[in-house]
């Protein structure tokens, strides 16, 4: 039996807020690069949606904190049956949606059933697949039954795709999101900004800001100008890392450098010759100089990784030594594999600068060991079509930003086409394991297997870069999920 209490939640909030001073200013303007397509986090993959609504407008049964931990959200506490199959959630009392209707067990059932329905358009439908039944015990108690034990279930329920929505407001959710959060949606001028304001009826610790405005500035130069001209107070996911030292030196601003869940990898088509030969993949790994990529493409921001796992996670194993930069070894391995003169391949680069800038550097490093990588720049839509769906590529660079996504290596039809039955079995065991210690062990094994198989070239963990005015406090430095949690943000006096 696991029990959590309200107290843990309250103290977590207090820590996140810092022991801040009284409110000096009531509103804030937060800029980010991408504008959300709409405001329903339960029916699209766009991280920009969560960046606006997660924690601010919508809440789930559990939620992520800035340090990546999972704390109770709309569920005040829960009990897990001994076989790990039945989760009984006790809901917070007195929670209302922004339209005044009560949030109760029926809404939870509606939200979960909607996400796992046949015709669901939830981008992370897999999160809900293990659920076999959701039943309402009483207005404040919900029982969720799983088909098999799932050690990640509470983690999954914290995702933005699992927030609780109401049947009364679902029709217009895309343009008028009605949630339970500490902020209410006010207005959206498409192409320009989204306004939210404090929810005076909030059930938990009230927001310290009265109003917040999200602005969308995609051009890196314009982003720099907007911060410098003090048009915006905060810029999350700042797109021009080369300008950060300038902000650091300026007393008007603070720079926040944190970690994200984005493993940036040189994805390799494991079914396409010559990459079906492990020797070739190993050669690839040794041909790459991670630090040069981090310095050259990301201006030094990023943590080297040696496997597909976030370095800030307690279960992380540092395997970077196994694929250290060693061009001679790479050349020897290539010769051993039957390519003494190297070979030609393709390198597809999606728009983000980690890929476009990083790709140029990687192509140069590969050329050094005799591999000619022909660079093709693609837009995301095209990348999805040819690389992800069509699997028509040799190499590509992508940051996998979903948290805890090592499970993708257990899907043989996933675009890099890694097919290892032993790994798939390990993931199945992991999914049904709830004991934390046992899970850590299995996760470490998994990291080692994919590193040993040199499935992909593991480059670095994407850094979360934000710039804010000096007086802003309570922002998340890290990005355990795509979110701009403003519930604990305030201005210093």
């Amino acid at each position, binding site marked *: 039996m696991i029990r959590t209490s309200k107290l843990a939640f309250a103290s977590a909030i207090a820590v996140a807020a810092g022991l801040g001073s009284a409110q000096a200013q009531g509103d804030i303007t937060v800029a980010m690069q991408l504008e959300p397509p709409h405001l329903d986090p339960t029916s699209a993959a766009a991280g920009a949606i969560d960046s606006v609504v997660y924690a601010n407008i919508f809440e789930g049964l559990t939620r992520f904190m800035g340090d990546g931990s999972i704390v109770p959200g709309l569920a005040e506490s829960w009990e897990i049956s001994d076989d790990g199959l039945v989760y009984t959630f006790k809901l917070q009392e007195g929670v209302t949606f922004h339209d005044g209707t009560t949030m109760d067990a029926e809404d939870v059932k509606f939200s979960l059933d909607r996400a796992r329905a046949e015709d669901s358009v939830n981008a992370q439908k897999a999160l809900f697949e293990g659920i076999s039944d959701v039943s309402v015990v009483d207005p404040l108690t919900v029982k969720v039954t799983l088909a098999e034990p799932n050690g990640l279930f509470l983690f999954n329920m914290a995702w933005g795709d699992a927030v609780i929505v109401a049947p009364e407001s679902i029709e217009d959710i895309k343009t008028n999101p009605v949630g339970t959060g500490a902020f209410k949606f006010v207005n959206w001028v498409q192409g320009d900004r989204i306004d939210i304001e404090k929810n005076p009826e909030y059930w938990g610790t009230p927001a310290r800001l009265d109003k917040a405005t999200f602005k*969308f500035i995609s051009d890196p130069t314009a982003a720099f*100008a907007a911060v410098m*001209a003090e048009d915006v107070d905060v810029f999350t996911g700042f797109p021009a890392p080369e300008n950060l030292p300038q902000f650091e030196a300026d007393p008007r601003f603070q720079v926040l450098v944190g970690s994200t869940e984005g493993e940036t990898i040189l994805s390799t088509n494991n079914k396409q010759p010559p990459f079906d030969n492990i020797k070739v993949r190993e050669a690839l790994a040794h041909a790459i100089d991670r630090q040069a990529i981090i310095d050259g493409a990301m201006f030094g921001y990023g943590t080297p990784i040696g496997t597909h796992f976030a370095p800030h996670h307690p279960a992380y194993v540092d395997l970077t030594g196994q694929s250290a930069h060693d061009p001679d070894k790479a050349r020897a391995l290539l010769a051993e594999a039957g390519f003494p003169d190297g070979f030609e391949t393709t390198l597809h680069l999606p728009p983000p600068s980690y890929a476009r800038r990083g790709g140029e550097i990687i192509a140069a490093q590969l050329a050094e060991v005799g591999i000619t990588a022909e660079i093709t720049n693609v837009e995301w839509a095209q990348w*999805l079509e040819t690389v992800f769906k069509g699997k028509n590529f040799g190499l590509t660079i992508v940051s996998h930003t979903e948290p805890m996504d090592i499970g993708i290596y257990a899907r043989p039809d996933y675009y890099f086409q890694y097919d290892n039955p032993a790994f798939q079995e390990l993931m199945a065991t992991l999914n049904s394991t709830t004991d934390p210690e046992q899970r850590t062990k299995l996760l470490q094994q998994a990291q080692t297997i994919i590193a040993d198989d040199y499935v992909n070239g593991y480059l670095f963990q994407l850094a979360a870069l934000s710039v804010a005015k000096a007086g802003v406090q309570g922002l998340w430095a890290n990005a355990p999920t795509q979110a701009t949690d403003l519930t604990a943000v305030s201005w210093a006096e």
Partner: protein
Amino acid sequence: MLRYTLKRLLSLFLSLAVASLVIFFVIEVAPGDPASFMLGINAQPDTVAALRAELGLDVPKWQRYLDWVGGMLAGDFGTSYTYRTPVADMIGERLWVSLPLALYALTLSTLIAFPAGIYAASRRGKPGDIAVMGATQLGVAIPNFWFAMMLVLVFAINLHWFSAGGFAGWDAGLWAGMRSLTLPAISLALPQAAILARVMRSSLLDILGEDFMRTARAKGLSRRQALWRHGVRNALIPVLTIIGLQFSFLLAGSIIIEQVFYLPGLGRLVFQSISSRDLIVVESVVMLLVFSVITVNFIVDLAYALVDPRLRSRT
């Protein structure tokens, strides 16, 4: 005049029909499925199929083309795939930024170009002419986005007179709205003004060499009177053509400036829609732009006829 107008109208409709076909099929043929783009890399195939059905992407292309054209004729531009709001509303909202911006820039460019061009022509070969021509050379050569960045650097970052970008909205008042469009309008207007001034000058110089100008002087008009009464009016035809082209360009081609100043205009809408494969929005906006370019040309054609009576009887 009636025959001339009808003929122009016919060519207007034909151009529109051809344009709609080209736009639709070129955009649909390009790779990239809107549904899989929206659902990202973790989506399951059945989810993507469900969304495709919801968006109406599972019907054949030619049928979607007919629905699209039929809808537009009835004034319905369809519903955006990603935003899920009517495309007509989105375009309408963006036009409130793009149209005033284009008009603002065009007004500025005309206000600068006319005096500059006329002044240069009347002082041909003298230092004043050389100075104006030098300045226009520079104006043509400087890319407008670079000029925009310089304006931001000086007037927003250093002087704090304007904000670095964004649109205050007309709700905030006419002045606030105009203010947020000022830097973008200037950066759009200057290169256009440079071109326009050069056209104005050379066109006027051609006219000044004509016999009727000498006649006008001979019948006793002063140099200035001859210039304004006979010169400028006759020099307007090529200038009008350029203004028409420039207006279309300003309306459709301000994508980069709208990015630099993050203005919620049409250009930015097209840019966002292209990258998110919001095909129907791209198609409708491009169609609208084609429509406006063709209509502006049509109006310019009619304006020629007004300025030059010979065109009315011809054709």
